[in-house]
């Protein structure tokens, strides 16, 4: 079975641009969470979606948004990119949104 897949694996963007990151959960998993991990830190919670509904939001500006599709895949969008948005963005899926999280390999975003 395929694990959590994220695309792209690496991305370079310029300040002020917009970016869309994609995540496909494990088959049968209905919940997707997004985390940001800057260099030298642990992952920080951004969003959680379950059954296309936002269930939780971390302390991130409104430039960050996400959505979940009927097939449970998800997109994370970041507008007006800042240098500080450079990070590894991790997606995690679980069956119900509580416990049993499996993480993807992440998307490395570099903002220049």
């Amino acid at each position, binding site marked *: 079975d395929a694990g*959590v897949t994220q695309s792209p694996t690496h991305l370079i963007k310029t300040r002020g641009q917009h970016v869309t990151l994609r995540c496909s959960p494990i088959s049968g998993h209905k*919940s997707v*969470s997004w*985390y940001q991990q800057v260099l*030298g*830190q*642990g*992952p*920080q*919670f951004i969003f*959680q979606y*379950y059954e296309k509904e936002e*269930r*939780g939001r*971390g302390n991130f500006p409104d430039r960050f948004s996400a959505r979940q599709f009927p097939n449970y895949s998800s997109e994370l969008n970041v507008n007006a990119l800042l240098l500080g948005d450079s990070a*590894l963005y*991790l997606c*995690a899926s679980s069956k*119900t*949104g*509580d*416990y*049993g*999280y*499996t*993480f*993807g*390999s*992440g998307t*490395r975003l570099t903002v220049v």
Partner: protein
Amino acid sequence: SQELEQSPQSLIVQEGKNLTINCTSSKTLYGLYWYKQKYGEGLIFLMMLQKGGEEKSHEKITAKLDEKKQQSSLHITASQPSHAGIYLCGAVRLMNRDDKIIFGKGTRLHILP
């Protein structure tokens, strides 16, 4: 202050030696995850602990959650080069209807041959 503290921040051990990584929470832990991360890559699930006093083992790695459910330790026996990486503890935090994970900053483990 950090809600979840990991110690040490980094660790260098000789291959074959034992080591312990600690994770301390400022709040009662409803659940505690241990993940391993290779530099710049995704998180690999190691173990999850939920009950006070619980202990789980997988191969040469043992994790424990104390009775008060505020501290966890990860112990590696007879370390190998494959154990090198970043070890992250993550505390389950309840939201309105679901949970999120609050992570520590990680412990960077280097194994010397």
